[in-house]
């Protein structure tokens, strides 16, 4: 267990360092130097004053060796300080943290919605395996996995916001604003959750301990709830946290469609505006959280299921 932990921790640190180097290098990879880019983002004038460029280069310390700049940047970054946005000139921190909150609530809403439907559907399919119900549920899950958010989203807006007027078409002002984006975002996880639940439940139903529980006189429902749910929850929870980590920055499309001020849209607009500090800050936050959440899941998995610790981890 100890070597498992050490290896995980080492992977984590190395990953974050590599990611930080990449994020740091963003402004240096493109054409032109950084000071010019910053000025160009601030003033809409192709001909820049050379003196101004010079002054900004000095001010930001861009004339120092690259590794010094990196260490300087990193020492600020680990404290959550990514500097100021080129365009709005507010600290990146103040942009990222609220956006993160929005993305977390959206992701949780979507995934919980998916889970609420997927667990019963998957269980139902597993108990009726090979039958019409199973076929229907499999088809539905395959369909929902194949439905792009940027297709479902606008259609939902058209029906429920424009024609029926039940929900707002976009924005982020209260609980009702979360409904349509959460539904659009939940479809694909719903399909995957259903399939994983069905597969895990099928295993449970064929397992000796399930037969044993039945033969002890426990009702089918009771056995299913006691043994089935608990044992099939592990793979579902793994998938849940995987999706959760992915949606923190990966729900770009839905956030853009519904005009939600989350991480995805923040990253998207900063890429469009070439707002480097915001790109760096958002990237670091998203990727760090993704790696942290997945590492935490692996550790939790190891705690809940002792056989993982012994087996060589793939």
């Amino acid at each position, binding site marked *: 267990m100890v070597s498992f932990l050490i*290896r995980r921790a080492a*992977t984590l640190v*190395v*990953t974050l360092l590599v990611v930080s180097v990449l994020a740091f290098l*963003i402004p240096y990879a*493109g054409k032109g130097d950084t000071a010019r880019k910053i000025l160009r983002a601030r003033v809409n004038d192709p001909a820049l004053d050379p003196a101004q460029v010079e002054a900004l280069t000095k001010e930001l310390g861009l004339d120092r060796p690259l590794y010094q700049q990196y260490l300087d940047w990193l020492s600020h970054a680990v404290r959550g300080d990514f500097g100021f946005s080129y365009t709005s000139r507010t600290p990146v921190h103040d942009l990222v943290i609220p956006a993160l909150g929005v993305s977390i609530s959206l992701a949780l809403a979507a995934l919980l919605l998916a889970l609420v439907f997927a667990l019963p559907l998957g269980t139902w399919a597993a108990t009726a395996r*090979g*039958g019409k119900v199973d*076929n229907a549920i*499999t*088809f539905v899950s*395959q*369909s929902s*996995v*194949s*439905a*792009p*958010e*940027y*297709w*479902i989203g*606008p*259609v939902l807006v*058209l029906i429920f916001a424009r024609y029926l007027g039940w929900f707002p078409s976009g924005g982020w002002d209260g609980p009702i604003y979360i409904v349509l984006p959460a539904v659009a975002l939940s479809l*694909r*996880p719903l399909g*995957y959750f259903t*399939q*994983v639940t069905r*597969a895990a439940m*099928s*295993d449970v*139903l*064929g397992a000796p301990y399930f037969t044993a529980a039945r033969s002890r006189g426990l009702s089918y429902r009771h056995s299913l709830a006691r043994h089935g749910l608990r044992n099939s929850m592990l793979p579902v929870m793994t*998938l849940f946290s*995987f*999706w959760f*980590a*992915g*949606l*923190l*920055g*990966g*729900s*770009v*499309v839905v956030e*853009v469609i519904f005009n939600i001020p989350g991480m*995805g849209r923040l*990253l*998207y607009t*900063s*890429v469009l505006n070439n707002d*480097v500090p915001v*790109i760096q800050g958002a*990237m670091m936050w*998203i*990727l760090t959280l993704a*790696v942290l959440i*997945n590492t935490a899941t692996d550790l939790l998995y190891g705690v809940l299921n002792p056989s993982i610790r012994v087996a060589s981890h*793939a």
Partner: protein
Amino acid sequence: MPRTLTRPEQQPGQPPQRPTSLRSATPHRPNVLSMMVRGARGRPWTFSIGCAMLALILLILLLTPWIAPHDPATQDLTNRLAGPSPEHWLGTDHLGRDVLSRLMWGGRFSVTIAAITLVICGVTGIVIGALAARRGGWLDELVMRTVDVLICFPDVVIALFLIAVFGTGYGTLIAALTITGWTPFARLMRGLALEINAKDYVEAAEILGSPKSYIVFRHVIPNAIRPVLAMGFLRFGHKLITVGALSYLGLGVQPPDSDWGAMLLDAQPYMERAPFLGILPGFAIFVTALSVTMIGQGLDVRKIRRKRALAPEPPPGVQTQLEVGEAV
């Protein structure tokens, strides 16, 4: 739905009469093509439907230059956002261009880009996974740790990162989808290769003195091809959706080229006046992704069923081995 196994030597509920030791000493070389042609025997009904749908879609896209009713770029500003008519079967878009023709030409971009990235990811993942399993040691450790990390990065975020650095373009698009895309293949291939490496025929090849790389390419990879192919089909749908997502954000396929995602983007301002304009390209993505998902899951089923048939207590039915999707 009859679910009997059609292989004559397999009696339901009984282990098959098969000399397993001999079998495992003989390399099993499935022919991918004949496997596809032998078709839907013993697979769920969705498999055949998926194949038919995909074949039809590919046929249409292949024949587009000859059967497309109009030029996709010809504008007719007097006939904008028109509904279906004998002249324009699916109506016209905001510039009066024929929607059916644009769907056909756009599909060629969507499907080609998804296919190219898929092949790159597949080949990279297969080779890396197989080599990692064969060599073991630090290489294996390095590969698997890299996979662990990359697999949890959302690919749209990686794409945005690359676009921030290199700008938009087909190269960036394909690179963005490849950086994280090879990891599931590598992970799957490594697992399969570890199993295959323990087989007698691999040991036989080792005793004969075959070099490691020969064993990997001659024995390990060919014998792992079916599950990898299944994953390939499943991933294809995912790639298609991601390519569409980037185009929908205006960062994928750039004008004057246009794919299904870009068509959806163009249609957004006109959703109320011409809803079909914003529904048809998405439907095209959906149908194509659905067809490959059906094929992929259908391909996977046979493997599981055979494994089950060899197990001491074969429970009836099928189980889907699923590669987790990534968020878009």
